[in-house]
């Protein structure tokens, strides 16, 4: 302990100790010399002998400093100081290196924080590891039912995985007391209309069973959370709101508790606020309002033929997502082994119709991360992006390594001098590496700065205008540790080879080597640097090809003919029944609003339908043509003037107009595809069909045939569609409506006027999902848009880094060869010949890189085949454009050094030595 404090004291008196040591050694030398002189040796020789007897003084001083302790720390400080000096004296190199590293590390950090948030993070609940998710597996897709947390998917290993259960199944599993400490269920409630203090608005709702909050282990931020007693048919209607909603709508969590609100026009009391970090159990959908599951009896409006109450008894209708918390010591596979056969027996007892082998098999899956929908959607794109940014960082590293190699060759003499006066090789390498790690950490530091910006950019890109995009990635310590590690790794990666190179080999030769450097070592260095350059170019080609493929995919998607005019079209939703209006007045209100909107300045025309043509789901109904079989057909209910407004031509008959209302004869317009599929050879006008599900006796007459137009998703139009007037509710009850407002100028310019009209008509009404039709179309292809933008950015980045590297290496080569070029020119070489000579070197390099890059690109792009549209991964046009771009950029980058070489003055070059 004493020794430690003594050394600590010395640490702060370093300078004094140095001076003392100096004096001590000097004293020794003087004494020794004096003694030798006294014995008759001449003074000069005596001094020399004294020195020689003491040996390598620098080495001895180092050993003594070792004895003082703190050598590592001190050397580190020395190295850092030295690194600072070297970096300062090579400003261009330093800036280039730090910028390219910052871009590389920044891009990696940004993508990794998304990976971390989406793929790796656990739910912010206590002990997430003991949570499990219940699913079932069948060979055939046999899903009956619905849940807004769409967590069913095709199993990549075959068959189909269902993510939700019937209520009786939920009750059955709730008794799985042997393995589960608690079992809870939930169902997405969609957008709820929330009226609080006279203000109407929408909020994402979640129906949760009474054990939801206790099962997840969530403590209330204010008030209380929901309990099993709340989740009973007929209990007092209570709700829990998220922290975020309480801030936004209720003046903070404290004042939210106890407030009365109307949800979908039903009175509720807010009893508590969930904590800010809690986002529900599905990372893809963040609820604002939690209501007991049984309140769907009063909140959901559906057809009277399928009452909600029946869902609680029907074992064949699946709608509850189930999660559970395992008892201590039980694992998911154990729970599955115990419960699976029990569950199968139960299913057999309730579902006697299905053969036993078709019955769903229970799966108990680890549920620490919550529902997996988000992970399934984004895992592949994220892995691809991570691979791309990884490649960028590789290019950046290769680049810096290359520049360092050039410098290492220049410093070979310096290193040899150092080694020969007693520096250990390890010590020199450590010092060179310190320089690199400092560079890398600076790059990492700026990279984190870039990443915070990049994350914001990526989030906007991913959300792509979706107003309920609640997903947030962030930089946490988790990510920062990875960044630090990454920086260290890159530093060592690009620093080690040059450091080894410059300290290797024969000191004697290195010291004698002429400055222009063309010794044995430089040949190997050159080939290594060529390999680095070549692989950079090959990687860049790969990224250019990927970017090209995504750009072409996007342009293919954007040039799809949708069959209607989506330009300057504002769309938004209005739901009068949800806000409390009664059925007979709803149609009148909708029509009235249409007239008022149409009268606004800047509005050309207004129409209505139950969904926008592109941007939301579709309805598919079974219909039966007179004398024909049952067919499933897409159905869209529309208002008067729809076809005219959407600019879909009516080929035969008439448009739907204002006379097609309740009481008038039932009519429909069908599209060409419908005629082709069902009425070929007949005269379609006047043909009749029924919709047996809602009214088996109501015959609907076809009065018009329209051209084909897309409906639902962005596909080439061609599916049969029936258009029904929404004002004839015998077939379909009027619910929410979507307005399409065609404007003369920017469609978003009329929003305020539109809101104003809606507000004045009925303050309970609120607009939602306001967007232009073009934006809705863009959202359909948001993944492709994101990909093509990111890939283009990444490819340009890679191209820039590679070109900078090429430029720097070629410039260095030209300087190195100044003498040789000078001789050539003195012997009569022309300037153009010199330019050609340098360019030829680049051409060989690029050609060699292509030989590797093209097959690699063809092979690697197979991975992204599933993201492409309208072209194959080996699209020849894309490949040739990428190759041409790369060759062009390479020639451009090396032209400047080549021109520099041609300007060399032979006289000067020869004196250069």
């Amino acid at each position, binding site marked *: 302990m*004493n*020794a430690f404090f*003594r*050394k600590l004291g*010395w640490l702060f008196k370093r300078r004094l100790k140095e001076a*003392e*040591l100096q*004096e*001590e*050694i000097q*004293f*020794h030398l*003087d*004494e*020794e010399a*004096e003694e030798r002189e006294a014995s008759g040796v001449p003074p000069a020789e005596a001094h020399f002998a004294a020195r020689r*007897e*003491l*040996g*390598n*003084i620098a*080495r*001895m001083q180092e*050993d*003594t400093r*070792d*004895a*003082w*302790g703190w050598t590592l720390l001190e050397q580190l400080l020395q190295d850092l100081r030295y690194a600072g000096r070297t970096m300062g004296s090579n400003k261009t190199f330093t800036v280039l290196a730090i910028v390219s590293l910052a871009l590389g590390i920044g891009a990696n950090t940004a993508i990794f924080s998304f990976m971390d948030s989406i793929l790796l993070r656990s739910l912010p609940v206590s002990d997430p590891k003991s949570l499990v998710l219940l699913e079932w597996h069948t060979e055939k897709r046999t899903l009956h039912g619905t849940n807004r947390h769409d967590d069913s998917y095709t199993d990549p290993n075959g068959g189909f995985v269902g993510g939700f259960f019937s209520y009786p199944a939920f009750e059955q599993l709730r008794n799985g007391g042997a393995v589960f400490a608690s079992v809870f269920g939930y169902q997405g409630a969609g957008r709820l209309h929330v009226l609080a203090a006279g203000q109407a608005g929408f909020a994402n709702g979640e129906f949760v069973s009474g054990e939801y909050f206790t099962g997840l282990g969530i403590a209330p931020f204010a008030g209380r959370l929901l309990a099993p007693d709340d989740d009973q048919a007929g209990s007092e209607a209570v709700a829990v709101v998220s922290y975020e909603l309480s801030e936004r709508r209720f003046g903070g969590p404290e004042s939210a508790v106890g407030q009365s609100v109307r949800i979908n026009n039903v009175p509720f009391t807010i009893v508590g606020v969930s904590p800010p970090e809690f986002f529900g159990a599905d990372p893809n959908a963040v609820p604002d309002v939690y209501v007991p599951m049984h309140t769907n009896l009063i909140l959901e409006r559906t057809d009277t033929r399928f009452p909600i109450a029946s869902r609680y008894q029907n074992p064949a209708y699946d709608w509850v997502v189930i999660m559970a918390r395992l008892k201590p010591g039980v694992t998911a596979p154990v729970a599955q082994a115990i419960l699976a056969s029990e569950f199968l027996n139960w299913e057999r007892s309730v579902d006697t119709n299905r053969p036993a082998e078709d019955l769903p098999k229970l799966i108990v899956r680890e549920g620490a991360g919550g529902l997996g929908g988000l992970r399934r959607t984004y895992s592949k794109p994220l892995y691809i992006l991570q691979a791309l940014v990884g490649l960028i960082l590789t290019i950046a590293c290769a680049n810096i390594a290359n520049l360092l190699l050039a410098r290492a060759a220049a410093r070979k003499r310096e290193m040899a001098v150092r080694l020969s006066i007693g520096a*250990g090789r*390890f010590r020199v390498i450590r010092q060179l590496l310190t320089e690199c790690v400092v560079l890398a950490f600076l790059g990492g530091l700026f990279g984190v700065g870039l990443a915070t910006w990049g994350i914001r950019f990526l989030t906007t890109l991913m959300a792509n205008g979706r107003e309920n995009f609640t997903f947030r990635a962030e930089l946490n310590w988790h990510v920062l540790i990875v960044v630090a590690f990454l920086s260290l790794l890159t530093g060592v990666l690009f620093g080690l080879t040059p450091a080894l190179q410059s300290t290797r080999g024969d000191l004697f030769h290195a010291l004698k080597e002429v400055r222009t450097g063309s010794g044995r070592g430089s040949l190997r260095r050159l080939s290594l640097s060529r390999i680095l350059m070549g692989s950079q170019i090959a990687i860049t080609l790969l990224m250019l090809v990927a970017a090209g493929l995504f750009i072409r995919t996007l342009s293919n998607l954007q040039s799809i003919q949708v069959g209607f005019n989506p330009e300057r079209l504002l769309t938004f939703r209005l739901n009068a029944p949800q806000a409390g209006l009664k059925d007979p007045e709803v149609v009148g209100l909708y029509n009235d609003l249409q007239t008022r909107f149409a009268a606004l300045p800047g509005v050309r025309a207004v129409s209505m339908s139950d969904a926008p043509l592109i941007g939301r789901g579709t309805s598919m109904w079974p219909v039966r043509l007179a004398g024909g079989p049952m067919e499933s057909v897409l159905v869209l209910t529309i208002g008067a003037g729809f076809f005219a407004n959407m600019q879909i031509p009516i080929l035969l008959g008439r448009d739907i107009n204002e006379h097609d209302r309740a009481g008038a004869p039932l009519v429909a317009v069908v599209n060409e595809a419908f005629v082709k599929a069902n009425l070929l050879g007949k005269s379609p006008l006047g043909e009749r069909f029924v919709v047996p599900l809602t009214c088996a006796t109501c015959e609907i007459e076809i009065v018009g045939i329209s051209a084909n137009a897309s409906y639902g998703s962005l596909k080439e139009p061609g599916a049969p569609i029936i258009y029904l007037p929404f004002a004839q509710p015998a077939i379909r009850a009027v619910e929410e409506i979507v307005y399409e407002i065609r404007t003369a100028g920017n469609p978003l310019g009329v929003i305020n006027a539109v809101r104003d009209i809606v507000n004045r008509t009925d303050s309970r009404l609120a607009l939602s999902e306001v967007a232009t039709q073009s934006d809705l179309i863009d959202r359909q292809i948001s993944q492709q848009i994101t990909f093509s933008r990111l890939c283009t950015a990444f490819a340009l980045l890679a191209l820039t880094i590679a070109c900078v590297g090429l430029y720097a290496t070629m410039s260095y080569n030209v300087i190195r060869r100044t003498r040789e070029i000078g001789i050539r020119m003195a012997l009569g070489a022309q300037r153009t010949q010199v330019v050609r000579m340098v360019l030829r070197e680049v051409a060989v390099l690029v050609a060699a890189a292509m030989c590797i890059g093209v097959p690699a690109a063809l092979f690697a792009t197979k991975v992204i085949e599933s993201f492409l549209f309208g072209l194959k991964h080996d699209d020849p046009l894309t490949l040739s454009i990428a190759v041409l771009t790369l060759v062009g950029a390479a020639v451009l980058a090396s032209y400047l050094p080549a021109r520099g070489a041609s300007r060399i003055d032979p006289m000067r070059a020869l004196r250069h030595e």
Partner: protein
Amino acid sequence: MTKQRDRIEFLQGTLDILILRSLQRGPAHGHALAKHIKQTSEEVFHVETGSLYPALHRLEAKGWIAATWDQSDKGKRARFYRLTPSGRKQLAVEQSKWESFSRAMSLILKTTDQEG
């Protein structure tokens, strides 16, 4: 690297004892110590003068010897080292260790002689 360290380690032990033993006679500066050690042990060990100073500073760090600046007999400023109480103790420990070691060694060597 390691090879070098082994050698120093071996030397360290012996050199440390030599220094401590020399200082038992009274305080001395580096040059005097070097001379003394050389005179008393040159036939047995080859002590590099260069390794003397690191060893002195190492022993000082351990607290076995202490250093003060004083006038040399020629009137110049020199760094004088002297044994501290803990150094004295250490020397005794090392001495007895060496003695038992050499006793054991000679015992072994004798036995082998008889057998041979």
